[in-house]
């Protein structure tokens, strides 16, 4: 039988990557000196599964490498080896190496053997206290070492099972059947131990056997057959060539396969299962996937979905079908007396559709721990590199987020956490000098709030130096000398392109990716980022992201014949303004005063060139006060329509990127409405204004 093993590869890689993550987490959690056995066991189990799987699916390199790790872990588990920092670090590096190997294998590219050899040597050194090349058990066994005999008379086998043999699920008849395949077999049962029928326990094996296996079967093959029961029976195997005289007369009580031809050498190519690795055919089978099945389908994106979610979905579809059939029946013989039932049905339909939509959305939701899980390792590595003592606290790891957000939020978060480690947390001696605990804390937190997910990165470090930031911004010409900025606006400066706070760019942060990129990435996900900071106390970055990227809560606004959608999260309020609130400022266009602040007015009809807007004068229409990037402005529109959830259709995928517009949606009447991108609009409107005016507006 040939089974294409490649079909299981994807599942294998998925669980192996999970296993590697589990190993890494486990290793980071280990307490040196006094390690929790259960924790080591978890790590061991992950390594063990990877070894078993990779061996089975033919990834010999991975299996060999994992074997060495497993041996090391096994010794730690049994207490034969101390859990030292060196061992943990070596294992962590090996996990990285293994991950590289796994990635290379899944993508069908070559494994970096030099790197593997380096790490393997490191492990071997640790294992043996010196250079050693241990041959892994899973390496290809030599073809046939079963020690074939020449023609011979055969074997005498005395087989006296212990009483409990049957209760191990072993059946002597099976054993005899297998022996019969090796050659002619005669079996004689010894019934001396049989009790009287009345005393007999049917679950006990009272029989023993004297067996003659005729022909030239190899001893190994016989041993294999008895391998499972050798501890459950008294046995003797005697070579008939060497002992011609056998005690007693052999009277064939039962003859099994007496006609079986004496075995040819070819028979040994198909020995019983316990000798698996010696099968030449088998080793060939196992080599095949290495050559061919590299990573055929490793990249097809898949998602693991909990059964409860699927069940919820099926349940919801069931409800929908019931509602649909109810409406169908109603429609067959409809008259006006049934109009109330029709309305009820439609309400139900709406509810079920919404619930179905939510259930489908939930499928794409994954816990944020997928992103958070990389940080313990990062903090561990970086803090020792920086010579700082830092503890990472994580909470809300189970908060669920859209899969795309999970994939895209990783890099910005890494950057922010790096910043906190590098620039935020002080050196231990500085902290002590300031009366703070020696160990700094970085807190990653995630939670749901409204229709958003909030991610906080909080450190108890030195905080942002507002004065320094402002001085630097002035020096770079990003802010004019006389601009009067509030603290919050000064913090916003770090998001400007070309602004780096580090006096020296270290290799930890400052890799050419600035905070401006962080903000841009977050905005691309429809999110915002805020800073709160206090000098000497710490800094908190708050990222606010939509729960899903496919649906948006929007407010429809009317301008002329057009309808636009304003994301509800951006809206502060909508107001009707009186003429006395409006000012015209030279060089800054229209502004209006709202609670002692002057906000610029953006006329949507001008930005989008709509000729037939109803409201020409500001007091005729409405101002929708919106916020984006920490700046506020009033969008001037004719009128407001309802609020609704809209399904976002990408403009870029269907047309091209348009400034000030983040996407489009299709309204209930079939027409298309553009979804406004508020930060983009602000940029569009303020393109020609100097920065500080925008900031102080």
């Amino acid at each position, binding site marked *: 039988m040939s089974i294409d093993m490649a079909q299981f590869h994807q599942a294998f890689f998925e669980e192996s990557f999970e296993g590697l993550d589990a190993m890494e987490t486990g290793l980071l959690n280990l307490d040196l000196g006094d390690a929790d056995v259960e924790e080591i066991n978890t790590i061991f189990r992950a390594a063990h599964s990877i070894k078993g799987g990779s061996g089975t699916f033919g990834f010999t390199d991975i299996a060999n490498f994992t074997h060495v790790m497993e041996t090391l872990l096994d010794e730690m588990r049994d207490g034969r080896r101390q859990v030292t920092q060196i061992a943990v670090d070596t294992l962590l590096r090996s996990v990285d190496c293994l991950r590289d190997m796994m990635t290379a294998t899944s993508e069908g590219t070559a494994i970096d053997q030099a790197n593997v050899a380096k790490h393997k040597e490191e492990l071997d050194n640790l294992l043996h206290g010196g250079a050693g090349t241990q041959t892994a058990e899973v390496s290809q066994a030599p073809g046939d070492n079963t020690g074939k005999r020449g023609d011979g008379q055969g074997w005498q086998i005395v087989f006296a099972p212990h009483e409990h043999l049957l209760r191990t699920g072993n059946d002597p008849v099976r054993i005899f059947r297998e022996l019969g395949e090796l050659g002619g077999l005669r079996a004689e049962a010894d019934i001396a131990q049989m009790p009287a029928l009345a005393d007999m326990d049917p679950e006990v094996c009272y029989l023993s056997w004297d067996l003659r296996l005729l022909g030239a079967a190899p001893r190994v093959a016989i041993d294999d057959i008895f391998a499972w029961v050798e501890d459950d029976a008294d046995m003797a195997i005697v070579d008939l060539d060497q002992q011609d005289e056998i005690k007693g007369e052999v009277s064939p009580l039962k003859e099994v396969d007496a006609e079986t031809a004496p075995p040819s050498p070819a028979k040994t190519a198909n020995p019983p299962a316990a000798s698996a*690795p010696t099968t030449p055919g088998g080793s060939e089978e196992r080599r095949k996937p290495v050559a061919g099945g590299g990573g055929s389908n490793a990249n097809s994106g898949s998602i693991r979905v909990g059964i409860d979610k699927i069940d919820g979905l099926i349940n919801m579809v069931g409800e929908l079908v019931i509602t649909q059939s109810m409406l169908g029946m109603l429609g067959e013989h409809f008259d006006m007396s049934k109009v109330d039932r029709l309305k009820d049905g439609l309400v139900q339909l709406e509810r079920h559709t919404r619930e179905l939509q939510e259930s489908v959305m939930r499928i794409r939701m994954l816990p944020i721990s997928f992103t958070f899980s990389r940080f313990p390792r990062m903090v561990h590595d970086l803090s020792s590199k920086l010579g700082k003592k830092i503890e990472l606290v994580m909470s809300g790891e189970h908060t669920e987020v859209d899969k795309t957000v999970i994939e895209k939020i990783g890099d910005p978060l890494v950057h922010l956490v790096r910043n906190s480690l590098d620039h935020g947390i002080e050196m231990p001696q500085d902290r002590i000098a300031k009366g703070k605990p020696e160990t700094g804390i970085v807190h990653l937190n995630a939670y749901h709030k409204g229709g958003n997910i909030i991610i906080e990165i909080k450190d108890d470090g030195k905080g942002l130096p507002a004065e320094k930031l402002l001085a630097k911004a002035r020096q770079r010409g990003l802010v004019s000398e006389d601009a009067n900025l509030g603290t919050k606006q000064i913090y916003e400066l770090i998001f400007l392109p070309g602004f780096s706070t580090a006096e020296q760019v270290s290799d930890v942060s400052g890799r050419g990716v600035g905070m401006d990129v962080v903000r841009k990435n977050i905005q691309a996900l429809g999110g915002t980022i805020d800073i709160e900071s206090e000098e000497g106390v710490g800094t908190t970055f708050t990222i606010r992201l939509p729960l899903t990227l496919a649906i948006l809560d929007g407010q429809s606004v009317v301008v002329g014949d057009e309808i636009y959608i304003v994301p509800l999260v951006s809206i502060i309020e909508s107001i009707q303004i009186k003429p006395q609130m409006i000012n015209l400022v030279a060089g800054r266009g229209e502004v209006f005063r709202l609670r002692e602040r002057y906000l610029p007015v953006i006329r949507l009809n001008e930005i989008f060139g709509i000729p037939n807007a109803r409201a020409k004068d500001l007091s005729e229409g409405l101002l929708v006060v919106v916020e984006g990037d920490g700046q506020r402005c009033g969008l001037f529109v004719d009128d407001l329509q309802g609020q609704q959830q809209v399904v976002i259709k990408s403009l870029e995928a269907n047309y091209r990127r348009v400034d000030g517009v983040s996407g489009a949606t299709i309204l209930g009447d079939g027409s298309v409405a553009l979804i406004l991108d508020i930060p983009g609009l602000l940029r569009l409107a303020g393109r020609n204004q100097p920065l500080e005016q925008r900031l102080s507006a």
Partner: protein
Amino acid sequence: MASILAVDDSASMRQMVSFTLKGAGYEVVEASDGVEALNVAKTRNVNLVITDVNMPNMDGITLIKELRALPSYKFIPMLMLTTESAMDKKSAGKQAGATGWIVKPFNPDQLLATIKKVLG
């Protein structure tokens, strides 16, 4: 046709075992750890159990011990999936009542050959 309970915490191994056995016409019930397997075993009878040894929640050896204590599983063959090196596991498994073992790594043909022998 005989039914087989396949227990392994690794989904890929389970898939492979299950696919192989189903292809040979066996009915296969899967479980991802000892606890789940025990629950399955209590609700229905199978003709053979194949279990991994290292698993979370309940390992294979404990599973075998627990299963053997059930009247309907007293004589049912139970095989452990284990690596060659784990001699202590083999004997611990035997003590617990395992019928035998299949050595990892194995390929589908080896698995089927063993199963066929045990089930006859």
